[in-house]
């Protein structure tokens, strides 16, 4: 009986894990995408307004690539930026931001440009 009670309490406590934050729903290019040319746009979509405070594009060596940011610092469901022409190789988009509930967020996704 006691062990059942403990499990029930643990379940109830852990159930707090089902709370909502804004999430990044998808990206362009998709994470892991293999492209034949430089993407026209780096695009992220969130399911709740996100204030993207930092976004940068880095190559496999960690060097930052030029990228013209198209979105401002206001909370938005979308973020976009235009990269300059990229050589073949692997690239990662790193971003940080504030979710609508005030939580700091960070994330990254990668894509590859084939030779």
């Amino acid at each position, binding site marked *: 009986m006691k062990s059942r009670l403990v499990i029930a309490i643990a379940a109830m*406590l852990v159930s707090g894990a089902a*709370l909502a934050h804004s999430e990044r*729903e998808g990206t362009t290019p998709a994470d892991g995408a293999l492209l034949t040319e430089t993407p026209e746009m780096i695009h992220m979509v969130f399911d709740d307004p996100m204030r993207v405070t930092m976004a940068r594009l880095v190559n496999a060596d960690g060097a930052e690539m030029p990228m013209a940011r198209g979105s401002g610092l206001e909370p938005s469901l979308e973020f976009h930026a235009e990269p300059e022409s990229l050589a073949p190789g692997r690239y990662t988009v790193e971003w940080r931001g504030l979710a609508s509930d005030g939580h700091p967020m960070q994330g990254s996704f990668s894509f590859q440009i084939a030779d």
Partner: protein
Amino acid sequence: MIDTLASADTTVWLSILVKTLAYAATLVAAGSVLVSASLRELTEDGRGALRRMAVIGALAAAILSLLRVPVRASFLMGGSIDGAIDLMMLGIVTESPLGASVIVRLIGLALIPAIFLPMRGARWIALIGALVTCASFALRGHALGDPRLLLGALVTLHIAGLAFWLGAFAPLARASRREPAARAGALAHEFGTKAFWVVGALVIAGAITLALLGATKLDALATPYGQAFVIKLALFAGVLGLAALNKVRLTPELQAAAPGAAQRLRRSIVVEGALVLAILATTAALTTVTSPPAERANNAPSQPQTMQTASLVSRDFPWRY
């Protein structure tokens, strides 16, 4: 959780450290006021030490809480020092729930030194300050969800309970070291009796809060957030065990002036304090590098996404290249 921490950068570690210390100092400051107001067995000397502890704690909590703003700004700018002093970023953080929470906390902490004022009602001002300080925890994170008022009250109650518990460590240790065994035993007995109800309220408030916020799914254990929560629960179970030992065995021994009882109680309090610190550190890490799986994740085909970490998911979209 461990993987996420292993890949965390300096700003994240700094954030966890500052957050842990801010939690501890804030709880000690508020808790010292709550303990001073509720334990009658405190000696005048002990009460004086507790007042000093409240003020020192409030000062440390104010500095650490303020420090969280530039640390957050730095994180948002990719971990750079420039970010910590970037006025626009500091403004964004101040406008966020963290900013509101820090401002309310500073107001509460500023009222705590009133505990020293030689005037009628000063104790009540400090008490209000302690409760406002506890309420500041309800102004951010998931406490902002619905039903907001109830969640805010429950979070405040939970924090006040924790503060009372934490605030009693120093006076109990002090009494066991400096005061006659009977006197220290009486204080420990009074604390044990009141803590029984306080801890009960703390646990119930925490459990209802979580039940209100989420569903009942054990698969959350598979997420970093769930795992960190289990660590927190395990540490809490350890604290409860020690608290029970103090109440059932060590306090009666102290009251009976058994040889070495005071020393054993002090040792137990030190371990209890270390465990509480570990709980606070786990909570700080939990809220910094992981996030609960979103409700929407229930409908999502991908793994739950952590908010603050880089373990992101990607899906096919119509506009994909």
